[in-house]
């Protein structure tokens, strides 16, 4: 489980982090004619490994669109997107799907757990997609759930879990296949403040590793202090990027 749950010492930002995601002049629009909305207007940004990068900004500023483009689930109109050296914008759909399955973990705002599956079965889904047998995948998922304090809920259905517990299962699902990039969309939006902090702490502890990049979209300013870098977006562009020192991290002391 060492791979999934790095020690606290390993959470510290490496002295010279690698660029995990390179975004250059990425544009994206929705609709056409009078209805056309420019969601991204030539975004330039770098995401580094070993860091938790936050994308923040008001509603409708393009945060989620940018996250979707980074995750390879939405095609940009123009520009360049490189994830761990691979140019995602030029990948064919099939290659991109395989790339996502191998390299990207997802945490969704509404958890998106399958209601008919138990916690361990839900957490095992990325491994099943990767071709693992059901037994092995579920067994591995149980281990990961145990590591994030959900060991006693592995056989519970989503309907039997609280919001915080469901988000923990979603985090286990996002990490179970050891992805290089973790993308999280408003992971605390559906939770109360205290539970939101717990989830963010868990993400820092379990997800941030020297060889992994974590990108989180949030508008919850109470969790900004968890980020190593914060990109402030407005009107489809990143207006400012703020670096934070390790001292600001609640878990770094």
């Amino acid at each position, binding site marked *: 489980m060492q791979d999934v749950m790095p020690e606290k010492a390993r959470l510290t930002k490496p002295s010279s982090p690698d660029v995990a995601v390179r975004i250059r002049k990425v544009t994206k629009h929705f609709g056409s004619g009078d209805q056309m909305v420019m969601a991204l207007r030539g975004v330039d940004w770098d995401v580094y490994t070993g860091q938790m990068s936050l994308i923040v900004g008001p509603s409708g500023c393009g945060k*989620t669109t940018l*996250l*979707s483009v980074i*995750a390879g*689930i*939405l095609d940009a109109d123009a520009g360049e997107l490189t994830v761990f050296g691979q140019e995602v914008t030029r990948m064919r759909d*099939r290659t991109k*799907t*395989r790339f*996502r*399955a*191998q390299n*990207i973990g*997802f945490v*969704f*705002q*509404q958890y*998106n757990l*399958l*209601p*008919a*599956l138990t916690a361990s*079965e839900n957490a095992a*889904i*990325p491994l*099943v*997609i*990767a071709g693992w047998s*059901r037994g092995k995948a579920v067994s591995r998922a149980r281990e990961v759930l145990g590591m994030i304090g959900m060991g006693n809920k592995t056989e519970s259905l989503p309907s039997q879990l609280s919001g915080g517990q469901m988000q923990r299962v979603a985090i286990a699902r996002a990490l179970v296949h050891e992805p290089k990039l973790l993308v999280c*969309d*408003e992971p605390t*939006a559906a939770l109360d403040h205290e539970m939101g902090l717990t989830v963010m702490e868990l993400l820092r502890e379990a997800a941030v590793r020297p060889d992994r990049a974590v990108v989180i979209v949030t508008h919850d300013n109470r969790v900004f202090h968890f980020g190593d870098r914060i990109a402030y977006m407005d009107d489809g562009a990143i207006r400012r990027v703020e670096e934070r020192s390790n001292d600001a991290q609640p878990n770094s002391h």
Partner: protein
Amino acid sequence: MSWIALKMLVGDRAKFLGIVLGLTFAALLITQQGSIFCGLMLRTCGQITDITGADLWVMDPNVRFIDDVKPMIENNLYRVRGVEGVHWAVPLYKGQARAKLNTVDREGKRINVIEQVILLGLDDASLVGAPPPDKILVGDLGRLRKPDAIIIDNNRLAKLYPGEPWRTLEKEGNGFYTRFLGRELEMNDHRAIIVGVCEATRTFQSNPVVYTLYSRAKYFAPQERKILSYILAKTEPGVSPAVVAKRIEQQTGLGAASSDEFMWKTIGYYMKYTGIPINFGITAVLGFLVGTAIAGQTFYNFTLENLKQFGALKAMGATNFRIIQMILLQALVVGLLGYGIGVGLASMFGWANQSPKSDLSFFLRTEVVGAIGGLVLVYLLLYVGRLITRAVFVQASVVTTLGYLVAFAAAYRYMLQGVKGTELAFYCWWPVPLVTGVAVVLICILSSLVSIRRVVVLEPAIVFRG
């Protein structure tokens, strides 16, 4: 990912049951209406299938179906006998007569009963066309040669003798019918004495069938100048009945057909000149449409409600192909369940309307083995194609095999016995379950196509929209 697909499917019980019910309804309606249609069609030619032993039916060339009797002159019998390749030829009278009798009703009150009967006059010497020995429930065929003797079929005896304790029939079995031996009827002012009770295919009009001698039939039937309805002929060994039929037609100017040809000619007449096929066809099509609407709509709703989950799976790297496999597997499972339950219920319906009821034991006929074998083969292919796990393969095979055994037990047992003696014309001919299966497959394909289209064009980015 098949187990995920199956868990998703059964996880939403209300929708799962809705889809299965829709398919069950469609399968039930198509099988039931199809079987009733086949039963009715079979009844139109019951007398043709009941008469065995002869290769050819010779008749007036303008006869269109069995009841369209156009009497011929007796000389035609000798002309047919003279045709090369005819081994023997015997006369057959077929007509309507009116049976009168004095009996008691259910309350024990004396009543006069007048009932239309179908009168069959068999060749005096050979008795060709008589029910085979295993169809004679009581009495003896030989006694037909006794004065005024008739053999009557058991189907409508209850109408002729309503006061008998019919409830005890199932308990007493065929012995129940011995009470009718020696009883007298009156037909065309002539006495007729029952010397036997036989089993006969119920006719379209459901009138009792009365067997007697050809020479005697003319006394029982209303006065007619010509009474030769049909000539039953046997061809010489090694000579093709089709060739002889052609010779008869050329040399005598009469019509000639094998039993099968005459049966299909009769069925063809009813198909063409009555509204029966259209009426049953409409009901079957309605069943198909309603089944498609219910199952399709519920299946589509099921997909719509799971759209975010499918989107999440796509985002996490599940390919369209794998998601299509999941949807098809879900469609296959509900299709098999709906089909099995629907056909089973239709069979039970047929059995419930059977009188007297046959037991539910059944014989391992090739069709049953084939049907179950086919299902297990489907599962095996799914297992080999890694669409389902071994556990799902074993469970699904055992459960559906047992379900189908029960369903087909009723259906096939019914097919063996039921069509002869039921009020309801219900004959589950083997193409009926086959057609039902094709209809259910079509419904599943249509339903899943709509869902598949929706999921294939689904952008995985949908999962990031709150």
